[in-house]
C-alpha cells in the first residue's frame, strides 16, 4: 500500500508541476517517484496497513506484479520525452494520468474485496479514457476515446451487475467469503450468473474476443505511447484481476466458467490472429496481436498449479517488454512519417538499425521464437495448459503459426527493402537507443536464462 501512496503522491506532484508552469519536470518527477516506489516494492509492507487487510493485501504476488508494472511504466516515461513532444502544453497531466492509472492497476493486484476490485478497475480506466483522446483536435483520437469510454462504461455496468448478484447471493464482497460460499453452493444460480457477468466484464477489459471489438480501434486511435501503456500495464492489471477473481473468488463454480473461458480463448486466438493477417496498418496489426496475446494468456486458467502465478507474471512481463520494443519503433516511425502503415517502416533497418533490431527481436519474442523471453513465457503457458486442455494448446499453436506471418511482414518491411525512406537528419535520441538496448538485453537474457526473472523479482 505504501507503493500506492507513493505513486499517488508522485502523480499529484507531477500534476501540480504543470499548474506552476513547470510541466517539463513532470516526467522527471514521475521517474523519480517510480524509482522510489520500485525500491519500496521490495520492502515488506508496513504494519500500519494491516488493518485494511479486509480490502487490500499487498502480498508477494501483488509486489511481483507491481514491480513488473513499475518497470514497464518507467520505460514508458523514458520514451515519453520524444513520444509526447506534441503534447507539451499538457504533458504534466498526461504523465500524472499515467501514474493515476498505474495506481489503479496496483489496486487490482492486491484487491481483497469486490469493492476494491471495482475501484481499481475504474481508477485504471478513467484516466485511460482521457489519455486515449489526448490528441484533442484529431478525430481518430476522439474516436478512440469515445469508443473506449462507451465500451468501458458499458463493461463497468456488467461488472457491477455481477457484483450485485454475487453480493445478493453470498452476502459479502470479501473475496474469501465468496470463495467459501462458492464452494458450499456451487449450484446457486444467482451466484453463477454474477460470476459469468463479471467474467464478461473483465473479458471486455482485457479484450478477449468476442468482447474485443473496441480494442483495435482504440489502440490505433490513441497516441502511441498511451497505446503502449494500454497494451502493457493495463493488460497486466486486467489479467491479474481476472486471475485473482476467478481462481480465488469463483473457485467454487470453476466448472461453470472454465468452459466459457475456453470458448473465449478459442475465439480470441483464431479471430484475432486472422484479423491481424488482414491489416495493412502496423499499429492496428499490433492491436490485433495484443488481442491475440490475451488469448494466450487466457491459457493460464487451464491446469492451474502452484507455478501459475509465476507463469502469468513471466508471460506478462515478456509480452510487455516486447510490446514496448515494437511500439517504441512505431512511435519513432509515426512521428517522422505521420502514419503507421507497413510501408512507413520500409528501410528502417538501414537508417535506424538499433530500433529495427529491437522491434524485430520483440516481434520474434511475441511470436515465441526460442532464446527470447516470449518463448519461455509461451512455453510455460503451453506446458501448464497441455494437461487440462490440449485442444486449446493446439489452437494456440495454430494461432502462433498464423501470427508469425504478420509479425514477419513488419520485419520484412524494416529489413528487406533496399530503398530507405527515412530522412537521415532525424536521428533517434540517445534515450531511445539506451532503452532499445535494455529491451534487447532483457528479452534475450530472460529467454536464455529464465530463472533470472525469478531472482530479480523475488519469487
Amino acid at each position, binding site marked *: 500500500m505504501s507503493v500506492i501512496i507513493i505513486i499517488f503522491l508522485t502523480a499529484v506532484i507531477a500534476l501540480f508541476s504543470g499548474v506552476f508552469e513547470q510541466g517539463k519536470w513532470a516526467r522527471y518527477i514521475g521517474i523519480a517517484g517510480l524509482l522510489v516506489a520500485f525500491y519500496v516494492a521490495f520492502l515488506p509492507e508496513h504494519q500500519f496497513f494491516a488493518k485494511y487487510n479486509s480490502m487490500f493485501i499487498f502480498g508477494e504476488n501483488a509486489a511481483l506484479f507491481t514491480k513488473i508494472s513499475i518497470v514497464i511504466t518507467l520505460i514508458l516515461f523514458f520514451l515519453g520525452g520524444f513520444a509526447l513532444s506534441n503534447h507539451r502544453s499538457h504533458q504534466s497531466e498526461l504523465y500524472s494520468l499515467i501514474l493515476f492509472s498505474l495506481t489503479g492497476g496496483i489496486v487490482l493486484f492486491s484487491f481483497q474485496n469486490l469493492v476494491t476490485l471495482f475501484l481499481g478497475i475504474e481508477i485504471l480506466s478513467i484516466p485511460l479514457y482521457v489519455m486515449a483522446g489526448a490528441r484533442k483536435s484529431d478525430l481518430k483520437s476522439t474516436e478512440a476515446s469515445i469508443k473506449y469510454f462507451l465500451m468501458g462504461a458499458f463493461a463497468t455496468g456488467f461488472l457491477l451487475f455481477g457484483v450485485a448478484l454475487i453480493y445478493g447471493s453470498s452476502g459479502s464482497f470479501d473475496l474469501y467469503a465468496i470463495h467459501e460460499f462458492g464452494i458450499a453452493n456451487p449450484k446457486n444460480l444467482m451466484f453463477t450468473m454474477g460470476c459469468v457477468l463479471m467474467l464478461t466484464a473483465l473479458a471486455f477489459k482485457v479484450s478477449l474476443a468476442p468482447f474485443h471489438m473496441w480494442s483495435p480501434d482504440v489502440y490505433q486511435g490513441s497516441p502511441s505511447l498511451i497505446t503502449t501503456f494500454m497494451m502493457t500495464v493495463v493488460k497486466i492489471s486486467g489479467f491479474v484481476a481476472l486471475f485473482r477473481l476467478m481462481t480465488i473468488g469463483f473457485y467454487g463454480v470453476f466448472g461453470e466458467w472454465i468452459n466459457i473461458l475456453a470458448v473465449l480463448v478459442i475465439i480470441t486466438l483464431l479471430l484475432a490472429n486472422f484479423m491481424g493477417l488482414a491489416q495493412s496498418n502496423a499499429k492496428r496489426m499490433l492491436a490485433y496481436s495484443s488481442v491475440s496475446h490475451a488469448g494466450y494468456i487466457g491459457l493460464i486458467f487451464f491446469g492451474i498449479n502452484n507455478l501459475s502465478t*509465476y507463469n502469468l507474471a513471466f508471460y506478462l512481463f515478456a509480452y510487455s517488454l516486447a510490446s514496448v520494443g515494437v511500439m517504441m519503433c512505431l512511435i519513432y516511425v509515426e512521428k517522422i512519417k505521420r502514419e503507421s502503415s507497413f510501408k512507413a517502416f520500409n528501410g528502417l533497418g538501414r537508417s535506424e538499425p538499433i530500433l529495427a533490431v529491437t522491434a524485430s527481436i520483440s516481434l520474434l519474442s511475441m511470436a515465441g521464437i526460442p*532464446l527470447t523471453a516470449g*518463448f519461455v513465457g509461451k512455453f510455460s503457458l503451453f506446458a501448464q495448459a497441455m494437461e487440462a486442455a*490440449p485442444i486449446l494448446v493446439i489452437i494456440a499453436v495454430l494461432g502462433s*503459426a498464423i501470427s508469425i506471418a504478420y509479425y*514477419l511482414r513488419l520485419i520484412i518491411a524494416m529489413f528487406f527493402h533496399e530503398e530507405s525512406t527515412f530522412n537521415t537528419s532525424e536521428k533517434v535520441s540517445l534515450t531511445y537507443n539506451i532503452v532499445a538496448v535494455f529491451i534487447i538485453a532483457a528479452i534475450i537474457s530472460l529467454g536464455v536464462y*529464465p*530463472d533470472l526473472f*525469478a531472482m530479480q523479482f523475488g519469487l
Partner: protein
Amino acid sequence: MSGVLLALLLLPLIGSVFTFFWKNNKFSNDVALGFSLISMVLAFYALAYFNFGPTVGQKLQYEINVPFSGVLRSNLHFGIDGLSMIMLILTNILVPLIILSSFNEKRAYSNKFYGLILLMQFGLLGVFTSLDGLVFYGFWEITLIPIWFICGLWGQEDQKLKFTTKFFIFTFVGSLFMLAGLIYVYNHSASFALIDLYNSTLTTTEQTFVFWAIFLAFAVKFPIFPFHNWQSDTYTYSPTQGSMLLSGIMAKMAVFGLLRYLLPITPLAIAGTSGGIVLMLCVFTVVFGGLIALIQNDSKRIIAYSSLSHIGLIAAGIFASALLTLKGNFTIEGGEGAVILAFAHGINVVGLFYCADILFKKFKTRDIRQMGGLASVAPKFAILFMIILFGSLGVPLTNGFIGEFILIKSIYDYSSLLGVISGFTMILAAGYLLRFYGKAMFGEGDKVILSSVKDISGVEFSVLASLAVFVILLGVFPQPILDMANSSLKLIYGSLVF
C-alpha cells in the same frame, strides 16, 4: 575434454558476432572462413579423440551439463555420441566449403551475410549436440532466423521474400507442433533431459498425438509429401549458399531428430498405424520427387526435387527398420543407411547446387534447355561435376551407392512391394540427373556464350574438388561412418524392442 565441445559451440557464435560487427567488407569473407576453418579443425580434433569402441561409442563424450532453469526443469546438456559426431563433422566440413564457395561473389553487406552463416552453424551444432528437449527445440528454431534472413535478403529474384516467408511459416508451424508434442512428453516426465523424455510413460493414444505433433516438424524440414510445398521454391530463389545450407545441413536436422527423438519417445505410436502411414508417405515422396524432377527444366528445381526424393528414401528406411524392429526382427540397417546417405547427400547436394550456380554464372539462366556444350570448354568442371553427379546417382564406389543400397534393402525387408517402388529412385535419378548433365555439358551450345566462358576458377575448383574427394573417399571407405553410427543406432532401435 568438455572444453572442446564448448569451444566448438561458442566459436561460431563468437565468429558470427565478430563478423557481424566487422566493418571492413573486404576481409569479412576471410574472417568468416577463418572461424569456420578453426571450427573444422576443432571438430576433427574432437573426432580424433573420440572413442570408437563398440561399447563405449554409444556413451556420450565431451559432455557439458550446466543447470539452467529450475522452473522449466531443463539443463544446458550437451554431449556427443556417434550419431552427433557424424552430423558434427558434416556440418563442419560443409560450412567452410559453403563460405569458400561464395568467395567469387560480390554482395552488399557481406559481413552480415557471413555473420548469419556462422550463426546458422552455431544453431546447427547446438541441434546436433544438445541432449535436452528444450535446448534442442531452442537451437532448432534459432537456425530458422539466419536462414530466413539469408534467403530473404540475398535471394535471387523479386519473389524471394514471398517464398522464403512461406518457408519460414511452414517450418515455424511444424516447429510449434513439435513444441506442443515435446511439452506433452515433458509433462509426463521428470525433466526435459533426453533420458527422462525417453522414460516418460505414455499410452498409445498419447504417443500417437505426440508422434504426429513432432513428426510434423520433421516432415516439414525434410520435407516429406505433402509438406514439401515450400521446398522447391525456396531452394530455387535462395542464394546458392542458402540452398546449400538448407538442403545440405538443415534437412539433416530432421534425420537426426527423427532418430534421436521421435523413434525412442513414441515407439507405441509407430507400432500402431501411424508408422505405416508415414512409411507410405515417405515412399510416395521418393517416387513423387523423382517424377517431378524428370520434367523440370530449371536446374535448381531438378536438384530440389532430387533432394526431395533422396530425403524421402532416408526417412522411409528409418521407418522401415523401426517397423521391422517393432515386429521383433531387430535391425538397424535402415538407420545405418539413413546416416550414411544423409552424410553423402549433404556433400552431393552442396556440390550439385554449386555446379548449378556455376552453370548459372556461365549461361545467365537456370533453364537447362538453353545450356549446352560446356564440356568442351570447361573440362575440369565437367569432370568434377560428373563425379558429384555419380555420387548423387548412387553409382557404386561413390558415397551415394552404399546408403541407397542399404536403405532400399531395409525397405524391401519390411515390404517387398515398397522396396521395389523405392528402388525406382535409382532409375529416376539416373533419368533426371543424366538429362541435366547431358543438356548442360554436351549438345549444341550457344556459340557466343561458349566462346567467352572459361573453365572454373581456383576457388570453384578447390570447393568442387574437396567435395569430389569426399564423394569418392566415402564411396570406397564408408566403414568409419558405419562404425560411428552403429552403437548409437543400436541404442535407438534397441529402445523399440520391448
